[in-house]
């Protein structure tokens, strides 16, 4: 390891140029990492998110709502397994297409942290409100809001990628 900062020291101009060069490479790599999901998976994700509140609501419902509770449980398991399988396919294709690692920390924290807290609260809160009130509108409102958030984030990625490219 050639670590010897005192034997060779670039001038401030050279150091500034080197930092600018790394920033350029960083921006270019960040654009690759921000490559959005293919449209088919963005739709799959939105549908999966939209399905969670009514299915979870059905699972929680007491007395039962539309279907017996265990049937809702099976539906939840099947759709989650299907989603995870499609996620695996989409992630593998994404890596092949971009040639970089799939990272989940591309978006700024100010956008990701509210999403990480807000979306689960929305998806779980709707069914609990439904259970408490018996009003299915809570489920459909949570479903629509979840799908809108998912599509909004996809479009943010599309814009981020275009801007950085």
């Amino acid at each position, binding site marked *: 390891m050639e670590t010897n900062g005192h034997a060779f020291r670039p001038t401030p101009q050279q*150091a500034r140029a080197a930092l600018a060069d790394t920033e350029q490479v*960083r921006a270019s790599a960040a654009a*690759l*990492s921000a490559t959005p999901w293919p449209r088919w998976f963005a739709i799959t994700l939105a549908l999966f998110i939209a399905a969670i509140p009514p299915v979870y609501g059905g699972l929680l419902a007491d007395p039962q709502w539309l279907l017996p509770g265990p049937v809702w449980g099976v539906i939840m398991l099947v759709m989650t397994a299907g989603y995870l399988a499609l996620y695996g396919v989409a992630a593998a294709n994404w890596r092949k297409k971009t040639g970089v690692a799939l990272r989940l920390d591309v978006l700024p924290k100010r956008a990701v942290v509210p999403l990480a807290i807000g979306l689960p609260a929305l998806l779980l809160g709707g069914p609990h409100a439904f259970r408490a009130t018996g009003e299915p509108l809570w489920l459909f409102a949570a479903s629509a809001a979840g799908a809108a958030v998912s599509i909004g984030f996809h479009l943010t990625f599309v814009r981020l990628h275009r801007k950085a490219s």
Partner: protein
Amino acid sequence: MTSAATDPMDGFDTTIHAPNRLRICALLDTAGEAEFSVVQRQLDVSASVLSKHVTVLMEAGYVEQRKAVRDTRQRVWLRLTRQGREAYQAHLTALRTIVGS
């Protein structure tokens, strides 16, 4: 570079400072892991030039490679080691110190 009393210039690393190697480190630090051909395209260098610099970085323990088969062809994926990431960050700190001095 864990102690405030440490001279930031201690992090200056001539192995990393060579322009193409600095760019390789910048790319891998941002992307996490990247395929050899992607690094080559991003840096606009020939495969032999990239291979030479990657070898230097691997010998220093800064970069590691992983081989994976895609479309029946073997692809090489590159990533910074933990030591490489720390050395790269320390080097950036040294450069910023020089700019600020």
